[in-house]
């Protein structure tokens, strides 16, 4: 034991030195001439889409690195308005106060819709009772007033069995959280807090698959990737039960939980040829990109609007 401690004491600073050196080399000017980087951050929902766009783009542009972070829509805008990123993924439109910060920093941007999403409510495979939930029932599960009091499925609907509710959902930095709370609880950010909040949708997948009474929500693409281990709940927004799907999201029938997804492009960044090329690629190949990332493609009208927005860059 003693000898292994000594070894680790010796190894640790060495590792630090090596990593530190690695860092400086990468940032060196000699490299930036060869490869360029497009920095994207923001919504974890939109991230798989922009990552897919990046991968497809790199087929013909191997010298461009596209890095996609998942700080959440709000977190992404903070970096975007600080000039740290070129493109910000967003699962909602930019808020006024965020736009004001961007304006103060002199960051001008263009908003482009890139796909549709259907916020999907998922339950455990063993959950045979909750096939369809009304918005009121979802609100009963998630409203701030339910904190600590609504803890069992039989409180949601009396015909439901006596199984403890185990809730997973988006973290507060996420656009998904803002959107879900607004549509379900009527006020952005209004949510009970005694659930597992996470920016990482995989944690929600893990939690709900591991718990019989589990319930969580995230973007449709994560559900499509995990269809074999999770069940999606149909949503009754007042006009009958509707399952989340590409068609119901595009047509808006999956109400109120379907929404468009956006990217925000900094005009300064778009002056760089690789960023401009990437955006043009993103907009013109929307069908291929959404198909690769398992998103709902834009409708024809949405596509022409996106092309028009990209043309202003």
């Amino acid at each position, binding site marked *: 034991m*003693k000898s292994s401690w000594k070894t680790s004491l010796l190894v640790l600073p060495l590792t630090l030195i090596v990593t530190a050196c690695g860092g400086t080399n990468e940032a060196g000017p000699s490299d930036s001439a060869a490869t360029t980087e497009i920095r994207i951050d923001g919504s974890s929902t939109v991230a798989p889409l922009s990552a897919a766009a990046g991968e497809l783009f790199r087929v013909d542009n191997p010298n461009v690195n596209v890095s996609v972070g998942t700080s959440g829509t709000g977190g992404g805008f903070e970096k975007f308005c600080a000039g740290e990123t070129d493109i910000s993924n967003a699962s909602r439109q930019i808020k006024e106060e965020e736009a004001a910060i961007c304006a103060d920093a002199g960051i001008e941007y263009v908003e482009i819709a890139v796909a549709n999403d259907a916020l999907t409510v998922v339950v455990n495979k063993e959950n045979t009772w909750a096939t369809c939930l009304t918005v009121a029932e979802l609100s009963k599960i998630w409203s701030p007033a339910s904190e600590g009091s609504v803890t069992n499925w039989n409180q949601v609907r009396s015909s439901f069995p006596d199984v403890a509710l185990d809730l997973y959902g988006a973290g507060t930095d996420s656009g998904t959280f803002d959107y879900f709370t607004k549509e379900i609880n009527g006020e952005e950010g209004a949510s009970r807090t005694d659930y597992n909040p996470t920016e990482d949708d995989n944690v929600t997948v893990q939690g709900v698959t591991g718990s019989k009474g589990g319930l969580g929500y995230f973007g449709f693409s994560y559900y499509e990737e995990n269809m074999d281990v999770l069940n999606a709940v149909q949503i009754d927004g007042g006009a009958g039960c509707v399952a989340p799907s590409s068609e119901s999201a595009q047509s808006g029938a999956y109400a109120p939980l379907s929404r468009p997804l956006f990217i925000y492009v900094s005009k300064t960044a778009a002056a760089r040829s690789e960023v401009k090329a990437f955006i043009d690629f993103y907009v013109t190949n929307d069908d291929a990109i959404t198909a690769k990332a398992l998103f709902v493609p834009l409708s024809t009208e949405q596509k022409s609007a996106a092309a028009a927005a990209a043309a202003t860059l």
Partner: protein
Amino acid sequence: MSDFSLTSSSPRNGEKIVKGVLFASAGFSVVITVGILWSLIAPAISFFSEVSIADFLTGTRWAPRFEPASFGVLPLIAGTAWTTFIALSVAVPVGLGVAIFLAEYASKKMRKIAKPVLELLAGIPTVVYGFFAIEIFTRVFLKEWMNLEIGAFSVLSAGVVMGIMIVPTIASLSEDALSSVPLALRQGSFALGANKMQTTLRVVMPAAISGIAAAVVLGISRAVGETMIVSLAAGNRPNISLNPLEGAQTMTGFIANAALGDSRVGSLEYNTLFAVGLILFIGTLIINFFSIRLVRKYRKAY
């Protein structure tokens, strides 16, 4: 004394350099410690100018990132205490058992095999332990074999696996302590007619108690500070509950989670991280303080 001068006749430049380097290293670690402490305290002070210390320490609702925000840190302290307690109830008996076996009962050959294996356990990265907790311990052991009604994240799973992680620490340090008890004590005990078990438990263990206590305290510190296992396996729902099958968030789990998201530097949310960090720091300091006193009180020098 004055007849002899210990200073050399010729200047020893090499020695001066070595002295300087050693002084710099000592100074470096002090400066770093003070720097860490300061970087904890400064944001924590601005946190406590907005949130009262009483609310922070006695509140039972932890929701700093929600509207309306609430800053009762007790759920996090409860999470840390619970996981630490479970970890130690695994690690102390098992670790001590291993130590006694290795020090008193194992053959030389057995020791040669068992010790490296045990130290291998200490070399496993905690993220691997965390993954093991979710995928194997919870899913296979607790659910399929024990048939427990348990979610994906639980204090039990995180605590037990953390206990397994701490076993080598406690075992190795306790074994050192037991082995350093002089043979004469054992011989005396045998001579008085005690058997091996009596000798081990009533003579060797009490003689080694300061080392064993130090091992346990180091185990506690590791459990309190452990981050990866708890943030992976205990979930991230702040929770005060005595049910070990429920998930909970610990102080370290909160810091890891909140630091990943985006808190604007200087915002209340950001300062929250440091306030929790400070509590963690003070907690560990108190543990260390008492452990040093404990060790001094029971220390026997041979």
